[in-house]
């Protein structure tokens, strides 16, 4: 199965990217080259294998290393949902492209 020029357009839209026609052509070839290699992976029988989203999940016998082990396996820790940082609006907005009265400016979205 190969990607088509239409796929590139659809993925570019999903990715919020734009490509000139020549760059899109080149990208199509490169992505199809990559997905050729992916084919060998698709053929592997993974029946019954639990997906591994992060390595903490594989650290068997290291339960002290993580917060929570339940019937779904190891879940990642979340901190308490409380305010822990002082207001740093000015520092945080210093690198913003456009700010006015402490608000981030974007192009008009509602007429």
């Amino acid at each position: 199965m190969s990607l088509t020029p239409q796929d590139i357009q659809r993925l570019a839209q999903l990715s919020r990217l734009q490509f000139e026609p020549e760059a899109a052509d080149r990208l199509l070839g490169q992505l199809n080259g990559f997905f050729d290699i992916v084919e060998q992976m698709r053929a592997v029988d993974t029946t019954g294998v639990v997906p591994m989203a992060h390595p903490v999940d594989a650290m068997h016998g290291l339960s002290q290393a993580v917060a929570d082990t339940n019937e779904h396996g190891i879940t990642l820790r979340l901190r308490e949902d409380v305010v822990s940082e002082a207001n740093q609006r000015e520092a945080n907005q210093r690198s913003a492209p456009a700010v006015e009265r402490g608000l981030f400016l974007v192009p008009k979205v509602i007429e």
Partner: protein
Amino acid sequence: MADLHHMTVAELSAGLKKKDFSAAEVATRFLARMGGNPHHAFLDIHSEVTLAQALASDEKIANGTAGPLEGVPIAHKDIFVTKDFVTTAGSKMLKDYRSPFDATVVTKLREAGMVNLGKLNCDEFAMGSANENSAYGAVTNPWDTTRIPGGSSGGSAAAVAARLTPAATGTDTGGSIRQPAAFCGITGIKPTYGRASRYGMVAFASSLDQAGPMARSAEDCAMLLSAMCGPDLDRDSTSLIVANEDFSRLLAVPAGDKPLATAGKEGGALKIGVPREWLGSGSQIAFESNAPARRSEGTDKEIQRRMEETLTLYQSLGADIVHVSLPQAHLCIPVYYIVCAAEASSNLSRFDGVKFGHRAKNFTDLADMYEKTRSEGFGDEVKRRIMIGSYVLSHGYYDAYYLQAQKIRRMIADDFQTAFAQCDVIAGPVAPTTAWQLGDKAADPLANYLADIFTLPASLAGLPCMSIPVGLDDIGMPVGMQLIGNYLQEASLLNVAHRFQQVTAFHHAKPEGV
């Protein structure tokens, strides 16, 4: 007394404590060496910030409040955010960006007393194996300036090799500490995933990204790692709840008839496992890349020879070499590039031209602003990975690609546990070749991906792993050997490397003219 810039972290630290020289003298020496930015290793330098930190260190040394690494310089990969230096992540997207805070790793190393020399060049968002994806230009290899230094922590490796800094931070997502360390003849370690905080590390692939030190010896790496790691529970949800360790503690294990024996499991010699899949057909311990046949160039003969010589030397030190198997390891390239692309496409969605970073000048509406901003700000490799990520996460393809990759990731991690039932550490090549010529693979992204064949499996599993110099090839370029340990076994891993470095001089070798 040796020249300051030839001293290791351990030597500098000892000399500073004895007041043989001051932190200001040390900083001044390295700043002078950095003048003219050799090898294009640095992206931001502020000598006044560096000198102020050095003077503060001298004061702490004088009044007896010095940290463990007080006054020793370090430079940071430009993927760690810093208040006092610009942070670009090698991207036009973050040109001139100033973070309002320091990364945890940067803070911890400063608290340990280290003086910041500046920010080091790297592949854009740490995506690359040659450092040619930096928006600010490539880094050259100090051993041969027509060659790449490796990537993505290429500036870090080149700066340490050229003695522009005694140590550097790096990050390793799929080999980005180990491979440039190998290509530049230095030592680098990626700890167990979750040991070092990811807070303030510009995110590429969150389930893989891990910080680690790059320096000239295992001894130095152990000192640096002890200062860098530790729980950061409120700021990184994958930070491990394990007390930090003194990673140097096993370095001094006394040498007997079998000096390596003490590093292994109780009551026997150290067992070094060599994956069968990384072996060549001919020799007893020869290596061959298991990359897909279509593109496989195999592993360079010179690298195979250095591996054989190194393992033979380990045997003479009392280690046993055993064969182990990593049957799914050859699938690491598609699995890794699907997982990291998926995570990258999600992580990089934050670059929208609104809150920080680049914003396009000309656009028609909000959507067009997003698209123009991102198209102008990101380089080709970053765009490729975002596109792959969008594809493998999209409706109808998720199960076949992303979920399947996560399942094989589990199989690869399980294979390592089976292997570690038979050995204490796993040894293998870092890369199928030594550093290639600048531009050689620049137009061929797939060729870059395939060169990661030996570093990706340990990354996917989240295991601690390192690269140590084991000699040069026939054209004088450094060869690295990879050592992989089981989870949280960094201290043993560093012992194994340190033992080797005590009886060899490969890690002392330096590029001509340095």
